């Protein structure tokens, strides 16, 4: 109880339906937090996959649930001031049920930014109250709402994949560097056989981190070049404000995936130099116990 795992829903061929977090709510009860854009697809997938499983029951709680991510070094103090409990005891990827600003909340020490913080799940009709209390309570700390653009730079600096950009139904878990969530020894799961085969044969390409060696923004879909030949594709790229670098994620041929490899990204017809680098691009600040 109280445990959370980052995981994947896989197709039988090992490619990816969605990435998600799984909450262990009880002995045999789980909460799945999926990408909002994939709710319908995932619902259809999980219900179909478990159609013949006795006692497997699903409830789509999306409409009734709000989620606010409070992220950053001051998140623990802020959530702590508003909560009915000592949230500093909640470890990374753990959760507790309690109240925050008197709103019943699932307090989850998770996020997708590489910073310490919480994701707060609240009833949809009380999420606004929670939001307002957080903004008011954090005013002295400089709290601010951020949009997806800002969130995207944070997750990119951590090389966290974004579904639809870096991982999708054409990419398998191993080439995406997510082998740690699809361990064959953990028991049966959809895609296990296919991924075991990929693991045995070795991946053809890998999702790697690129640093542009001159100012240039590599974006989703731009070709990655080696000696003018295409060797891969950029999946995400941006200026990285925390690292103050121009960075990208890309799939490249496995032979070119090691740190230090000099490559280029084709940007508007010009080859801009880039180097494979170790990731994350910026040190993680998550609070590991």
């Amino acid at each position, binding site marked *: 109880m109280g445990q959370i795992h980052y995981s994947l829903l896989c197709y039988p061929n090992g490619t990816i339906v969605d990435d998600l977090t799984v909450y262990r709510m009880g002995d045999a009860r789980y909460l799945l937090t999926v990408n909002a854009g994939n709710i319908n697809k995932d619902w259809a997938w999980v219900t179909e996959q478990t159609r013949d499983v006795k006692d497997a029951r699903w409830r789509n709680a999306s409409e009734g649930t709000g989620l606010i991510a409070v992220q950053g070094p001051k998140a623990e103090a802020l959530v702590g001031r508003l909560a009915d409990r000592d949230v500093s005891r909640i470890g990374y990827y753990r959760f507790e049920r309690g109240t925050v600003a008197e709103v019943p909340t699932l307090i989850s020490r998770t996020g997708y930014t590489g910073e310490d913080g919480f994701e707060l799940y609240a009833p949809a009709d009380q999420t606004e109250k929670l939001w307002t209390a957080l903004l008011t309570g954090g005013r002295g700390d400089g709290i601010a709402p951020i949009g997806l653009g*800002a969130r*995207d730079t944070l997750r990119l600096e951590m090389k966290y994949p974004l579904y639809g950009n870096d991982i999708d139904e054409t990419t398998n878990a191993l080439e995406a560097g997510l082998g740690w969530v699809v361990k064959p020894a953990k028991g049966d799961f959809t895609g296990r056989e296919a991924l075991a085969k990929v693991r045995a044969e070795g991946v053809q390409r890998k999702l790697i981190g690129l640093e542009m060696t001159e*100012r*240039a*923004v590599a*974006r989703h879909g731009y070709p990655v070049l080696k000696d003018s030949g295409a060797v891969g594709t950029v999946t995400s790229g941006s*200026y990285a404000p925390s690292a103050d670098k*121009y960075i990208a994620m890309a799939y490249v041929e496995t032979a070119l995936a090691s740190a230090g490899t000099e490559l280029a990204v084709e940007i508007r017809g010009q080859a801009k130099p880039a180097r494979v680098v170790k990731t994350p691009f910026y040190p993680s600040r998550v609070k590991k116990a």
Partner: protein
Amino acid sequence: MANVPGNLKYTREHEWAKQEGDRVRVGITAYAQEQLGDVVFVELPKIGAKVAATKNFGVVESVKAVSDLFAPVSGEVVEVNGELPQKPETVNQDPYGKGWMIVVKPSNQAEWDQLLTAQQYEEFLAQGGH
């Protein structure tokens, strides 16, 4: 409402143009930089390059998007803001001043009269700006 200086002319693509003797200085408007968000990359032509009215002459990128820059008038590029590639944030901080992009020696004076006045540009913005 975004700042729209009265002494400039404008394009529907949100560039501004300023007459300076027989030359025209060009940048993007306060509205444009607000819509883009933090500018992180600017690509400009070289001195001596020819630009054509309504055709793109460069690129500005924010975290969110890539946008082409469109020339308000045709002519030859006689000055380029060499600071911008190193300090793209200047476009956000001072779009009508230090954030200027190029100076053009126009080849067709009639194009100047095709540009929007400040009042017309403000009306254009009031209607949604696209």
